[in-house]
């Protein structure tokens, strides 16, 4: 980054913060910058070597060629051409978006309801913390184990089917419970609802209760309070949760493979299959497209929320 551009950024942010934009270069600001740089040096080093460089590497390799045994530098657009002209790509992309949207919807509804209950219906702080921790504990355990644990539940002779048969709801086992879109989305919701609960709960806890009281005094019903006061004030939390869920689902390659019994595909699986076949350039090209898609989605969502303000 050049001095010019960072000063421009700085003046932008300063202006945004309602301060007077600083004049151009000042020596007195150097020590200030120096502490910041030194303190964030380890962070910058890690992010440079393990985030920025890998992304650059992927972009570079996406123009390379692959033979049966190796990859070698070239500059050609074949990988992209193949990718963007194949109908499979569009199908898989559509599938990825579909998973993301459906998962987002369910995690939002469940996450919002859970957070709303915790924030406004549980009265003592101790209980709030205890119940909140109960929701978060599964997050600290292995995702793979949590996926595996659905198998005895959903399988042909699993708990769900045997229960339904014994209740007389169905005559034969349902085939679509496991290794289907249904099981993939179920696993996503199971794994990621928490990413909605936490930011929404966090935002709700910071809502001034006198606003709720004011709404009630003004004669609002519970439902009106929810739609006119709580939901608008919870928007930032909803946005942060959405960013988490959408990016996690779009970038996933393991849940889809596992829960669909390798019968469904999303972009992540396209990449991991290419990797398994040592087709790194084509994997890299797909990865570049995926990254652009995810970053576009994020930049749209970030329009609605100022993350730094929300922390």
């Amino acid at each position: 980054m050049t001095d010019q551009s960072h000063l421009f950024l700085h003046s932008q942010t300063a202006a945004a913060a309602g301060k007077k934009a600083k004049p151009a270069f000042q020596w007195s600001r150097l020590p200030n910058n120096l502490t910041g740089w030194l303190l964030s040096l380890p962070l910058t080093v890690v992010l440079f070597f393990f985030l920025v460089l890998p992304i650059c590497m992927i972009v570079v390799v996406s123009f390379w060629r692959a033979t049966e045994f190796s990859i070698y530098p070239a500059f050609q657009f074949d990988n992209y051409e193949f990718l963007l002209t194949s109908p499979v790509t569009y199908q898989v992309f559509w599938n990825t978006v579909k998973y993301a949207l459906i998962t987002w919807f369910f995690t939002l509804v469940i996450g919002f309801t859970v957070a709303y209950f915790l924030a406004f219906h549980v009265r003592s702080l101790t209980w709030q913390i205890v119940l909140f921790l109960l929701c978060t504990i599964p997050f600290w355990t292995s995702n793979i184990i949590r996926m595996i644990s659905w198998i005895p539940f959903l399988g042909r002779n699993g708990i769900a089917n045997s229960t339904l048969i014994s209740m007389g709801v169905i005559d034969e086992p349902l085939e679509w419970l496991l290794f289907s879109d249904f099981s993939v989305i179920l696993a996503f919701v199971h794994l990621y609802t928490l990413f909605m609960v936490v930011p929404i709960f966090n935002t709700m806890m910071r809502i001034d209760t006198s606003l709720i009281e004011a709404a009630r005094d003004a004669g609002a019903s519970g439902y009106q309070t929810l739609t006119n006061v709580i939901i608008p004030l919870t928007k930032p939390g909803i946005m942060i949760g959405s960013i988490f869920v959408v990016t996690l689902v779009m970038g996933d390659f393991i849940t889809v493979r596992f829960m669909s019994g390798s019968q469904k595909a999303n972009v992540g699986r396209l990449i991991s299959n290419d990797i398994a076949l040592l087709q790194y350039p084509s994997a890299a090209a797909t990865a570049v497209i995926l990254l652009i898609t995810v970053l576009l989605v994020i930049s749209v969502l970030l329009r609605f929320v100022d993350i730094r303000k929300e922390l």
Partner: protein
Amino acid sequence: MEKRSRSFYVLATFFALFLVFLYGPTLTIGILSFQGPGGGLTFPMRGVSIHWFHDLFEQQAVGDIWGSFFRSITLGLMVMVTTVIVSVMGGLAFRKRFAGSSVLFYLIITSLVIPSILISLGVGLIFSQAGLAVHWSTSGYGSQLTWTLPFGLLIMFAVFNRFDKSYEEAARDQGASAWQTIRYVVLPIIAPMLIGVALFGFTLSYDEFARTLLTAGSYNTLPLEIYGMTTNVTTPVIFALGTLTTLFSFGIIGIFLTVVLLINRRRSRHGSDAGKGMI
């Protein structure tokens, strides 16, 4: 206290169902891991035994479970210590704006939202093109940091946003140097949150799969080992392993929570000496 409304009971039921949904599958495999020797991957239970837990301790039944377990713990501890130190430093840095801080902030967000497989692929490619061998303690370690650091940093940002600056001003007024202020005022105040960051660092690393997949090299971490098992093990031994790792995770969470409680209790016992003429 006013009477509970009807919506409270509806929501409480919803919440209870949510907890069943969260914990049900885990409990199921917990129960199934005690299958008798003839039992399969699903109900009915054919007897109750600890046969499958025994199997775990025999080398021929499974792969290198114990080796991968100790590698995961070592790596988890490495990542935990690094995450705590780097997050605190980063948190302190971001209290003031500095040149490039916005760019760095967006990099942190990118690190959080980037599809994990890209980190795996990119780091793997860099190592292979540079002629270096990937290893869990080098490439695996760095890749996991891209996942744990953003979490640690976001917690630190939240902590410092709510931090009362008057403590530091008081320390400075008493003539404390910058380092003394950090060491004797800031760090003790944020200690419980640091436990949280440490917990994030350890458990995220211990369970991390996607970013370690292409960067761990020939020695697997535990999640990779479990993943390998899922494709070729068709006995409840995998449930036994799942039960054990879940219990281990619970144990870790328990330890961290206890430490936080102890710290808070010790503090409240000391209490405030305001108004007692103490200096």
